[in-house]
């Protein structure tokens, strides 16, 4: 069947079940409630003064009675420095557990070793927001029988509420915890900041193990993870490599191209009508996207504009803006560098939020719904403004859905920044390889060759033209870029589906098929 974006989606996928096609960015939400049944979180009991501390991770895992076919969940706040995910899978494999469903809020280069456990049948299903590197390559080439399900950060919460992700065992790595399992990522030698993605897991998992390399005297606070949801606590030597978890401060790019695009994007924002006192703002953490913050900061100072809140993945740059009084608050679901952790710990206006409060479409108001302006990156955009942030130019899974479609859906003004081509690879195409974010939720695409406004926002286009910005038809821009780089050979794929891309409401927005030619 075809979904509303004309993507070919099967009605049924082995190992996943019946597939609901995407019908529109806000279509399902209009109803005001979710038809899918929600499961209830487990009810557990402990006797007074029962001890939770266990000697080793293996002992804790054994106590939870792991079984074949179980679902194990993780958070990805340790980023590339994560030691715990692979270690847990290794222990489960040693215990002879097979057919595991891995549900990590995201996966990255530190998880390459998983390939081995996929090949030997320890892991047979994966839910994640992102996949990169060798793991993404191996999955794109078809090492798994069941497709990986790619969800957004908000969509993951929904999938846990509905029991699609039914977590048996949740492992929460924390940089500080006490003997009862109260835990935080804000302090300790492995500090990583917000524990926003892990909170839903702690509430819904049948068993919860907190793993820390910094067991502090009771009580450990802030209560990012609360003891009333925790079964066991383990002290290990190290939860990860601090240099890869979070280091120093984030620097703004020096690339002239990225800075040029960022400046144009900041001009768009300034003239859009949404740049005014009390506005809320989110930027991505990379390249041109973060650089927009630099130009917005200057514009705020010049025009004496004060914002309401900064949202999302938080960098030290955002913390600086908070400290300067340019914004009143930061809502932090994920912290990107070391300085953010200390701000989260010390500044009462820097508030840790869960993934549900951040972006879950099915509640009475996630923060992304309150967002005025978001600036996002893209691997490629098409003439219908659809955005791909998951498959690269060779067709491999090499990115993450993250909060992309959540914030695009929520924000009043969604600005996508990207160069018109990278190397020889065009970023403005007739049709993106894979859709993660639907074009109807993207308002402006900013490139160094011009600014394209979604035809569904004619008033915005008028305002920007009047302001003297170089507004262009996206089809013309696509043709111009194609003339420069040439027409690439198409990516050849088989019929086998290797990944299902879920929209935040749980519908199938796209699928990724196995690559025919492997490198």
């Amino acid at each position, binding site marked *: 069947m075809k979904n509303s974006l004309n993507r070919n989606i099967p009605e049924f996928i082995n190992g996943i079940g019946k597939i609901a096609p995407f019908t529109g960015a806000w279509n399902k939400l209009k109803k005001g409630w979710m038809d899918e049944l929600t499961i209830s979180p487990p009810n557990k009991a402990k006797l007074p003064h029962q001890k939770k501390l266990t000697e080793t991770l293996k002992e804790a895992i054994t106590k939870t009675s792991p079984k074949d076919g179980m679902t194990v969940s993780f958070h990805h706040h340790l980023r590339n420095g994560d030691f715990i995910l692979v270690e847990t899978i290794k222990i489960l494999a040693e215990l002879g557990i097979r057919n595991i469903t891995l549900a990590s809020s995201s996966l990255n280069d530190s998880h390459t070793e998983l390939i081995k456990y996929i090949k030997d049948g320890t892991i047979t299903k994966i839910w994640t927001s992102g996949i990169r590197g060798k793991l993404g390559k191996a999955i794109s080439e078809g090492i798994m029988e069941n497709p990986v399900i790619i969800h957004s950060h908000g969509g993951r919460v929904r999938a846990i509420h509905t029991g699609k992700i039914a977590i048996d065992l949740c492992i929460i790595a924390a940089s500080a915890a006490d003997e009862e399992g109260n835990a935080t990522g804000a302090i300790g030698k492995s500090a990583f900041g917000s524990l926003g993605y892990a909170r839903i897991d702690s509430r819904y998992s049948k068993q919860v193990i907190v793993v820390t390399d910094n067991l502090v005297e009771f009580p450990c606070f802030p209560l990012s993870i609360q003891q009333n949801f925790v079964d066991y606590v383990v002290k290990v030597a190290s939860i990860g490599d601090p240099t890869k978890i979070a280091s120093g401060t984030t620097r703004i790019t020096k690339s002239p191209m990225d800075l040029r695009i960022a400046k144009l994007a900041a001009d768009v924002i300034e003239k859009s009508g949404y740049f005014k006192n009390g506005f809320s703002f989110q930027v991505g953490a990379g390249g041109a996207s973060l650089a927009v913050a630099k130009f917005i900061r200057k514009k705020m100072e010049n025009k004496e504009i004060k914002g309401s809140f900064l949202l999302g993945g938080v960098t030290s740059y955002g913390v600086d803006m908070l400290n300067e009084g340019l914004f009143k608050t930061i809502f932090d679901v994920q912290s990107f560098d070391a300085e953010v952790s200390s701000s989260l710990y010390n500044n009462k206006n820097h508030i840790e939020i869960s993934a549900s409060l951040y972006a879950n479409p099915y509640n009475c108001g996630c923060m992304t719904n309150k967002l005025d302006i978001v600036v996002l990156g893209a691997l490629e955009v098409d003439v219908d403004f659809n955005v791909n942030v998951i498959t690269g*130019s*060779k067709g491999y899974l090499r990115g993450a859905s993250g909060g992309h479609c959540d914030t695009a859906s929520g924000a009043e003004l969604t600005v996508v920044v990207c160069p018109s081509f*990278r*190397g*020889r*690879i065009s970023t403005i195409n007739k049709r993106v390889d894979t859709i993660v974010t639907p074009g109807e939720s993207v308002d402006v695409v900013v490139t160094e060759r011009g600014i394209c406004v979604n035809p569904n926002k004619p008033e915005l286009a008028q305002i920007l033209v009047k302001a003297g910005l170089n507004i262009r038809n996206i089809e013309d821009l696509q043709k111009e870029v194609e003339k*420069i*780089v*040439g027409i*690439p*050979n198409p*990516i050849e794929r088989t019929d086998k589906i290797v990944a299902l891309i879920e929209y935040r409401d749980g519908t199938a927005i796209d699928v990724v098929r196995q690559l025919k*030619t492997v490198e």
Partner: protein
Amino acid sequence: MKIIKKAQAGSFESSDILILAEKPKDTKGRVIQLNSIVEKQYGDTILKTVNAILDKFEVADIHLVIHDKGALTPVIEARMETVLLRASNNQKGTMY
């Protein structure tokens, strides 16, 4: 045009192309070794561009080693032209 010595043009930088040219050792004709980060998407397009320049300069026998980091067609043409002029001792300018 006759290739009489080893020459190179271009660089390893992103969006550039490094081309090494020399006389073919024992064989006649054009021997082209292409290595490109966009080989899948543009391998044949790059070879077409390279061969078109070889045709333009009427080069029959040559050994080319090409490392491409996503150069656009005009860049490939320019680097090709330079490497051929250098390798055939026809370069007029300050470098030789």
